[in-house]
Protein backbone atom coordinates (compact mmCIF):
# COMPACT_ATOMS: atom_id res chain seq x y z
CA UNK A 1 0.00 0.00 0.00
CA UNK A 2 1.22 3.51 -0.79
CA UNK A 3 3.77 4.68 -3.30
CA UNK A 4 7.52 4.36 -2.72
CA UNK A 5 7.52 8.12 -2.23
CA UNK A 6 5.05 7.86 0.64
CA UNK A 7 6.93 4.88 2.02
CA UNK A 8 10.02 7.06 2.24
CA UNK A 9 8.15 10.05 3.61
CA UNK A 10 6.67 8.11 6.48
CA UNK A 11 9.82 6.13 7.34
CA UNK A 12 10.43 7.91 10.63
CA UNK A 13 6.77 7.61 11.63
CA UNK A 14 6.86 3.87 10.97
CA UNK A 15 10.05 3.58 12.98
CA UNK A 16 8.47 5.43 15.86
CA UNK A 17 5.38 3.26 15.78
CA UNK A 18 7.31 0.01 15.86
CA UNK A 19 7.44 -0.11 19.65
CA UNK A 20 3.68 0.39 19.78
CA UNK A 21 3.17 -2.46 17.33
CA UNK A 22 5.47 -4.77 19.27
CA UNK A 23 3.42 -4.07 22.40
CA UNK A 24 0.31 -4.96 20.41
CA UNK A 25 1.81 -8.17 19.06
CA UNK A 26 3.00 -9.41 22.46
CA UNK A 27 -0.26 -8.40 24.11
CA UNK A 28 -2.08 -11.27 22.43
CA UNK A 29 0.36 -14.07 23.06
CA UNK A 30 3.89 -15.04 24.09
CA UNK A 31 5.93 -14.61 20.95
CA UNK A 32 9.32 -15.49 19.62
CA UNK A 33 11.20 -12.88 17.58
CA UNK A 34 10.77 -14.84 14.35
CA UNK A 35 6.98 -14.77 14.92
CA UNK A 36 7.04 -11.00 15.39
CA UNK A 37 9.05 -10.56 12.20
CA UNK A 38 6.67 -12.88 10.37
CA UNK A 39 3.63 -10.94 11.51
CA UNK A 40 5.19 -7.63 10.54
CA UNK A 41 6.59 -8.91 7.25
CA UNK A 42 3.33 -8.55 5.35
CA UNK A 43 2.75 -5.02 6.62
CA UNK A 44 4.35 -1.62 6.01
CA UNK A 45 6.27 -2.21 9.23
CA UNK A 46 8.36 -5.15 7.98
CA UNK A 47 11.63 -5.11 9.88
CA UNK A 48 14.66 -7.23 10.70
CA UNK A 49 16.41 -8.76 13.71
CA UNK A 50 19.06 -6.04 13.61
CA UNK A 51 16.38 -3.49 14.44
CA UNK A 52 14.17 -5.63 16.62
CA UNK A 53 16.66 -7.01 19.15
CA UNK A 54 17.96 -3.61 20.28
CA UNK A 55 14.37 -2.36 20.52
CA UNK A 56 13.23 -5.37 22.56
CA UNK A 57 16.16 -5.02 24.93
CA UNK A 58 15.28 -1.36 25.47
CA UNK A 59 11.65 -2.25 26.09
CA UNK A 60 12.72 -4.89 28.59
CA UNK A 61 14.95 -2.39 30.38
CA UNK A 62 11.99 -0.05 30.59
CA UNK A 63 9.88 -2.88 31.97
CA UNK A 64 7.18 -3.01 29.29
CA UNK A 65 8.04 -6.51 28.05
CA UNK A 66 9.79 -9.50 29.56
CA UNK A 67 10.81 -12.85 28.19
CA UNK A 68 11.13 -16.44 29.27
CA UNK A 69 13.17 -19.22 27.78
CA UNK A 70 11.37 -22.10 26.14
CA UNK A 71 12.81 -25.24 24.65
CA UNK A 72 12.62 -25.51 20.90
CA UNK A 73 12.49 -28.63 18.72
CA UNK A 74 14.44 -26.86 16.03
CA UNK A 75 17.53 -25.93 18.06
CA UNK A 76 18.59 -24.09 21.20
CA UNK A 77 16.01 -22.63 23.63
CA UNK A 78 14.27 -19.49 22.45
CA UNK A 79 13.20 -16.32 24.18
CA UNK A 80 9.47 -15.84 24.21
CA UNK A 81 8.40 -12.29 24.90
CA UNK A 82 5.32 -11.28 26.85
CA UNK A 83 3.72 -8.06 28.00
CA UNK A 84 4.21 -6.89 31.60
CA UNK A 85 1.61 -4.98 33.62
CA UNK A 86 3.51 -1.78 32.86
CA UNK A 87 3.52 -2.70 29.18
CA UNK A 88 -0.22 -3.27 29.23
CA UNK A 89 -0.93 0.14 30.72
CA UNK A 90 1.48 1.73 28.28
CA UNK A 91 -0.26 -0.02 25.39
CA UNK A 92 -3.56 1.46 26.57
CA UNK A 93 -2.03 4.92 26.79
CA UNK A 94 -0.51 4.57 23.34
CA UNK A 95 -3.78 3.31 21.88
CA UNK A 96 -5.61 6.30 23.33
CA UNK A 97 -2.96 8.66 22.09
CA UNK A 98 -3.09 7.11 18.64
CA UNK A 99 -6.87 7.45 18.58
CA UNK A 100 -6.44 11.09 19.53
CA UNK A 101 -3.95 11.64 16.69
CA UNK A 102 -6.41 10.10 14.25
CA UNK A 103 -9.12 12.36 15.60
CA UNK A 104 -6.85 15.38 15.13
CA UNK A 105 -6.24 14.43 11.51
CA UNK A 106 -9.93 14.02 11.01
CA UNK A 107 -10.78 17.43 12.52
CA UNK A 108 -8.04 19.25 10.67
CA UNK A 109 -9.27 17.75 7.43
CA UNK A 110 -12.66 19.29 8.08
CA UNK A 111 -11.18 22.65 8.91
CA UNK A 112 -12.62 22.57 12.42
CA UNK A 113 -10.63 23.54 15.49
CA UNK A 114 -9.28 20.66 17.46
CA UNK A 115 -9.07 20.67 21.23
CA UNK A 116 -8.13 17.83 23.45
Amino acid at each position, binding site marked *: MGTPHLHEKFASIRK*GLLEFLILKIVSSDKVYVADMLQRLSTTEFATQ*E*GTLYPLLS*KMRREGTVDYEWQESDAGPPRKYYKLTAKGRSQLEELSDYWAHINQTLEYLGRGEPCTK
Partner: protein
Amino acid sequence: MHKVIAIDLNGRVYQLDERGYDSLCRYLEHAESRLGTNPDKAEIIRDLEQSIGEKLTRYLGGDRTVVTTAEVEQVLGEVGPVEGVDAPLAGHTTVPAGAAPTAPPRRLYLIRDGAMISGLCAGIAAYCNLDPTLVRVAFVASAVIEIAYLDRPPVLTAGLYVLLMFLVPAKTTSEGPTQTAHEPVPVKVHRGVERVKALFGRVHHTPQ
Protein backbone atom coordinates in the same frame (compact mmCIF):
# COMPACT_ATOMS: atom_id res chain seq x y z
CA MET B 1 41.27 -26.41 -2.17
CA HIS B 2 40.16 -23.53 -0.04
CA LYS B 3 40.18 -22.67 3.61
CA VAL B 4 37.14 -23.42 5.75
CA ILE B 5 36.65 -21.96 9.19
CA ALA B 6 34.57 -23.68 11.82
CA ILE B 7 32.70 -21.47 14.26
CA ASP B 8 30.49 -22.14 17.22
CA LEU B 9 27.23 -20.19 17.28
CA ASN B 10 25.22 -20.84 20.42
CA GLY B 11 26.49 -24.37 20.83
CA ARG B 12 26.25 -25.47 17.22
CA VAL B 13 29.24 -25.69 14.93
CA TYR B 14 29.05 -24.22 11.44
CA GLN B 15 31.69 -24.30 8.75
CA LEU B 16 32.02 -21.15 6.70
CA ASP B 17 34.34 -20.39 3.86
CA GLU B 18 36.94 -17.80 4.71
CA ARG B 19 35.29 -14.79 3.11
CA GLY B 20 31.97 -15.69 4.66
CA TYR B 21 33.70 -15.81 8.04
CA ASP B 22 35.20 -12.36 7.39
CA SER B 23 31.75 -11.02 6.50
CA LEU B 24 30.34 -12.40 9.73
CA CYS B 25 33.17 -10.86 11.77
CA ARG B 26 32.59 -7.51 10.07
CA TYR B 27 28.87 -7.71 10.73
CA LEU B 28 29.39 -8.45 14.42
CA GLU B 29 32.02 -5.75 14.82
CA HIS B 30 29.68 -3.27 13.19
CA ALA B 31 26.85 -4.42 15.46
CA GLU B 32 29.02 -3.96 18.55
CA SER B 33 30.08 -0.56 17.40
CA ARG B 34 26.49 0.53 16.70
CA LEU B 35 25.36 -0.68 20.11
CA GLY B 36 27.97 1.57 21.69
CA THR B 37 27.44 1.64 25.44
CA ASN B 38 24.12 -0.19 25.34
CA PRO B 39 24.01 -2.09 28.66
CA ASP B 40 22.48 -5.11 26.90
CA LYS B 41 25.09 -5.20 24.17
CA ALA B 42 26.37 -8.70 24.99
CA GLU B 43 22.86 -10.11 25.13
CA ILE B 44 21.82 -8.48 21.86
CA ILE B 45 24.92 -9.86 20.16
CA ARG B 46 24.09 -13.35 21.49
CA ASP B 47 20.53 -13.01 20.18
CA LEU B 48 21.84 -11.97 16.78
CA GLU B 49 24.29 -14.88 16.75
CA GLN B 50 21.47 -17.26 17.52
CA SER B 51 19.32 -15.87 14.70
CA ILE B 52 22.24 -16.02 12.28
CA GLY B 53 22.93 -19.62 13.33
CA GLU B 54 19.32 -20.64 12.79
CA LYS B 55 19.29 -19.08 9.35
CA LEU B 56 22.60 -20.71 8.38
CA THR B 57 21.15 -24.10 9.30
CA ARG B 58 18.79 -24.04 6.34
CA TYR B 59 21.74 -24.21 3.96
CA LEU B 60 23.13 -27.35 5.59
CA GLY B 61 22.03 -30.93 5.61
CA GLY B 62 22.56 -33.83 3.25
CA ASP B 63 26.02 -33.53 1.74
CA ARG B 64 26.26 -29.82 2.49
CA THR B 65 28.58 -29.08 5.39
CA VAL B 66 30.00 -25.68 4.43
CA VAL B 67 28.10 -22.41 4.13
CA THR B 68 29.33 -20.32 1.22
CA THR B 69 30.14 -16.60 1.32
CA ALA B 70 27.04 -15.77 -0.73
CA GLU B 71 24.86 -17.68 1.71
CA VAL B 72 26.43 -15.99 4.74
CA GLU B 73 25.87 -12.62 3.11
CA GLN B 74 22.29 -13.53 2.28
CA VAL B 75 21.70 -14.40 5.94
CA LEU B 76 23.36 -11.20 7.18
CA GLY B 77 21.19 -9.24 4.74
CA GLU B 78 18.09 -10.87 6.21
CA VAL B 79 19.15 -10.14 9.79
CA GLY B 80 19.83 -6.56 8.75
CA PRO B 81 22.21 -3.99 10.15
CA VAL B 82 21.94 -3.25 13.83
CA GLU B 83 20.21 0.00 14.55
CA GLY B 84 20.57 1.92 17.76
CA VAL B 85 17.36 2.78 19.56
CA ASP B 86 18.45 6.21 20.67
CA ALA B 87 15.75 7.92 18.61
CA PRO B 88 12.55 8.55 20.57
CA LEU B 89 10.14 5.72 19.90
CA ALA B 90 6.37 5.98 20.09
CA GLY B 91 6.49 9.18 22.08
CA HIS B 92 9.07 7.98 24.61
CA THR B 93 12.13 9.84 25.61
CA THR B 94 13.07 7.53 28.44
CA VAL B 95 16.19 5.99 26.96
CA PRO B 96 18.97 6.53 29.48
CA ALA B 97 21.46 9.09 28.28
CA GLY B 98 24.25 6.54 28.66
CA ALA B 99 22.59 4.22 26.17
CA ALA B 100 23.14 6.54 23.21
CA PRO B 101 25.32 4.65 20.74
CA THR B 102 28.61 6.20 19.85
CA ALA B 103 29.58 6.79 16.26
CA PRO B 104 31.91 4.17 14.81
CA PRO B 105 35.52 5.29 15.23
CA ARG B 106 37.35 6.45 12.14
CA ARG B 107 40.09 4.07 11.17
CA LEU B 108 43.02 4.38 8.85
CA TYR B 109 43.47 1.60 6.31
CA LEU B 110 45.54 0.83 3.25
CA ILE B 111 42.92 0.73 0.51
CA ARG B 112 43.98 -1.83 -2.06
CA ASP B 113 41.28 -1.09 -4.61
CA GLY B 114 42.67 1.37 -7.11
CA ALA B 115 45.96 1.61 -5.20
CA MET B 116 49.01 3.06 -6.99
CA ILE B 117 51.52 1.38 -4.65
CA SER B 118 50.12 0.17 -1.36
CA GLY B 119 46.91 2.14 -1.03
CA LEU B 120 48.34 4.33 1.77
CA CYS B 121 47.54 7.63 0.05
CA ALA B 122 44.02 6.46 -0.75
CA GLY B 123 43.64 5.42 2.88
CA ILE B 124 44.86 8.76 4.22
CA ALA B 125 42.59 10.55 1.74
CA ALA B 126 39.56 8.52 2.87
CA TYR B 127 40.40 9.17 6.52
CA CYS B 128 40.73 12.92 5.97
CA ASN B 129 37.96 13.08 3.36
CA LEU B 130 40.34 14.36 0.67
CA ASP B 131 41.02 13.54 -2.96
CA PRO B 132 43.60 10.68 -3.09
CA THR B 133 45.46 12.46 -5.90
CA LEU B 134 46.02 15.41 -3.60
CA VAL B 135 47.62 13.17 -0.98
CA ARG B 136 49.80 11.53 -3.65
CA VAL B 137 50.89 14.94 -4.92
CA ALA B 138 51.71 15.96 -1.35
CA PHE B 139 53.94 12.91 -0.94
CA VAL B 140 55.72 13.60 -4.25
CA ALA B 141 56.07 17.29 -3.36
CA SER B 142 57.57 16.34 -0.02
CA ALA B 143 60.09 14.08 -1.79
CA VAL B 144 60.96 16.85 -4.29
CA ILE B 145 61.45 19.38 -1.47
CA GLU B 146 63.72 16.93 0.31
CA ILE B 147 65.82 16.44 -2.83
CA ALA B 148 65.91 20.13 -3.78
CA TYR B 149 66.42 21.77 -0.40
CA LEU B 150 68.15 19.14 1.67
CA ASP B 151 70.21 17.91 -1.26
CA ARG B 152 69.78 14.23 -0.47
CA PRO B 153 67.61 11.29 -1.61
CA PRO B 154 64.07 11.55 -0.16
CA VAL B 155 64.84 9.21 2.71
CA LEU B 156 62.46 10.91 5.14
CA THR B 157 59.44 10.83 2.80
CA ALA B 158 60.15 7.34 1.51
CA GLY B 159 60.96 6.11 5.02
CA LEU B 160 57.71 7.53 6.39
CA TYR B 161 55.76 5.95 3.53
CA VAL B 162 57.34 2.53 4.05
CA LEU B 163 56.88 2.74 7.81
CA LEU B 164 53.18 3.58 7.48
CA MET B 165 52.78 0.89 4.85
CA PHE B 166 53.75 -1.66 7.46
CA LEU B 167 51.94 -0.08 10.41
CA VAL B 168 48.57 0.61 8.79
CA PRO B 169 46.34 -2.42 8.27
CA ALA B 170 45.04 -3.24 4.79
CA LYS B 171 41.52 -3.38 3.57
CA THR B 172 40.14 -4.39 0.21
CA THR B 173 36.94 -2.62 -0.64
CA SER B 174 34.83 -1.60 -3.55
CA GLU B 175 32.95 0.92 -1.42
CA GLY B 176 33.38 4.66 -1.56
CA PRO B 177 36.24 6.15 0.41
CA THR B 178 34.02 8.01 2.85
CA GLN B 179 32.27 4.83 3.85
CA THR B 180 35.63 3.18 4.28
CA ALA B 181 36.71 5.88 6.65
CA HIS B 182 33.73 5.42 8.93
CA GLU B 183 33.00 1.74 8.67
CA PRO B 184 34.39 -0.36 11.49
CA VAL B 185 36.04 -3.42 10.05
CA PRO B 186 38.27 -5.98 11.71
CA VAL B 187 41.69 -4.73 10.80
CA LYS B 188 43.40 -8.06 11.21
CA VAL B 189 42.09 -11.57 11.16
CA HIS B 190 43.56 -12.03 14.63
CA ARG B 191 41.53 -9.16 15.93
CA GLY B 192 38.41 -10.57 14.32
CA VAL B 193 39.11 -13.90 15.97
CA GLU B 194 39.61 -12.21 19.32
CA ARG B 195 36.44 -10.20 18.89
CA VAL B 196 34.35 -13.24 18.14
CA LYS B 197 35.87 -15.36 20.84
CA ALA B 198 32.38 -16.58 21.57
CA LEU B 199 32.40 -17.97 18.08
CA PHE B 200 35.85 -19.32 18.36
CA GLY B 201 36.24 -22.73 16.82
CA ARG B 202 38.99 -24.47 14.96
CA VAL B 203 40.52 -23.80 11.59
CA HIS B 204 40.51 -26.54 8.99
CA HIS B 205 42.08 -26.72 5.60
CA THR B 206 39.55 -28.79 3.75
CA PRO B 207 39.84 -29.79 0.11
CA GLN B 208 36.72 -28.67 -1.70
